[in-house]
């Protein structure tokens, strides 16, 4: 018993214990989030921490289990990409109550008192820039389709609202359909195929992420309309950067997952070392990428 006590003391001594940081990500079924999670883990390791990635599989209940395990396992910070803006708040509050700081990456949660800081893509402003280019490309008139992301995610609505804050000022631009495809490429293809049957004469499609933009593009290729319909995405994913370079996709909003992941890991390190004055939300600029400036960019960032 006495020896067990000493073993226990030894394993908990600060000198021998490596601090642990958890990375909880909404899904690893999308290369963009894989990049976000891996970059956060690499940065945490570079700062001297053990880092473990948890995949929520777009499931708030699974995310909740992850948080409970993380708290019990003694992780000292969570770098978090939420599954649901409202549904994830309780998990973050639980971590806060346990004294574990949470730094949100990319996806916002609907609370200003739960996370220590939220480092978020400026989705609204990015979509404003896309919408301006969209309106110019369509000469302020035409029929278009909007494919939304997950309806419970704030980015979905920030992108949609930013987009509409511009295009709705032009009565010649008519949205003939607006449907969700959950940020999923295959769903977007099915949604687009179905929309094309009801609305064969469209001029453009705005998608809430690049995966859906590629799905919509595939549907357009299958229906022989790819040359006529302009596709706009959001993310800066590898296949869309290639597609813009080949003039298949008109534009995307380049997000910077590396900046968000590294800032979150840096903040966690600073928190563990004693800093407490973090801004609740920090926007990370999104950049418009078109055929004209594609040479300045690579997937997930700038050259």
């Amino acid at each position, binding site marked *: 018993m006495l020896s067990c006590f000493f073993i226990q003391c030894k394993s908990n001594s600060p000198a021998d214990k490596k601090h642990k940081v958890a990375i909880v990500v909404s899904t690893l079924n999308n290369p963009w989030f894989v990049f976000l999670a891996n970059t956060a883990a690499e940065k945490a390791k570079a700062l001297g921490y053990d880092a473990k990635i948890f995949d929520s599989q777009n499931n708030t209940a699974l995310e909740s289990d992850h948080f409970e395990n993380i708290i019990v396992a003694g992780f000292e910070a969570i770098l978090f990409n939420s599954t649901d803006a409202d549904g994830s708040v*309780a998990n973050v509050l639980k971590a806060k109550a346990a004294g574990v700081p949470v730094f949100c990456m990319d996806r916002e949660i609907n*609370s200003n008192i739960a996370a220590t800081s939220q480092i978020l893509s*400026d989705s609204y*402003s990015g979509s404003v820039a896309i919408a301006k280019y969209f309106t110019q490309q369509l000469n302020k008139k035409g029929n278009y389709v909007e494919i939304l992301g997950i309806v419970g995610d704030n980015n979905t609505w920030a992108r949609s609202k930013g987009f509409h*804050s511009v295009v709705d000022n032009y009565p010649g631009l008519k949205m003939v359909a607006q449907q969700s495809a959950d940020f999923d490429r295959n769903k977007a293809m099915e949604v687009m195929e179905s929309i094309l049957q009801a609305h064969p004469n469209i001029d453009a499609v705005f998608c809430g992420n690049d995966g859906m933009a590629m799905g919509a593009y595939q549907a357009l290729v299958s229906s022989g309309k790819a040359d006529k319909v302009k596709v706009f995405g959001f993310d800066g994913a590898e296949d869309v950067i290639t597609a813009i370079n080949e003039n298949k996709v008109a534009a995307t909003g380049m997000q910077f997952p590396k900046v968000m992941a590294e800032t979150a890991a840096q903040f966690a390190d600073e928190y563990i070392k004693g800093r407490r004055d973090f801004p*609740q939300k920090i926007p990370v600029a999104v950049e418009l990428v078109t055929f004209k400036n594609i040479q300045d960019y690579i997937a997930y960032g700038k050259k």
Partner: protein
Amino acid sequence: MNKYIKYLLLIIVIGLVAYKSVYVKKLSEMKVATNEKFDAATFSKKLWDDKLPAKLGGAVDLPIFINATQANPADAFSKYTNALGIGNYRYALIKAEGVVININEDDITLQVKLDDSLMIAKLATEFVYGNAIRDASGLVDVKDFPNTMDLNNISEELNKMVRKTVLPQFKAAVKKGDKVIVSGAIEIHKEHIKWNELEIIPVQLQIVQ
């Protein structure tokens, strides 16, 4: 007697498990911030009337700004530009004087005199959107606005004021060959500066005959 102790222990165990399993939070605590309605229109109008004119008075002359960025970009961005978020975009309030060489559907082409050369700049007259005015002004601090939409709405309101109060009168009066003095905001990508694509978002415009 043993039976009662057993039940008592069982009740204590169930009570403890239930106490640790259920968390009750007030809904108001979860949505504390969303209930506070921010009036972006009033806030932006006050900014526009009371604070922005003084800031525009101190705007840097465009040729000075260009020279500064060419001489020492880091210093120039630090001295003359601002941005609310992290990223490559920086915003500056500038003053420029130029001659109208073309009036297009969505913008006006200005020929601006630099120290020993001329440059072409676009004056936006249709697509006045984005964060250039809000960020360049330096009047808005991200720490004061935990709700992201409030920040977006400030940009919207400032841009709306340009579109509705500054541009209609100017567009109706401006002619090719006019000399124009403009104070406004510009967006610069600090990694890829392209002066030949410079666009000025006007806030104050004056046609000088």
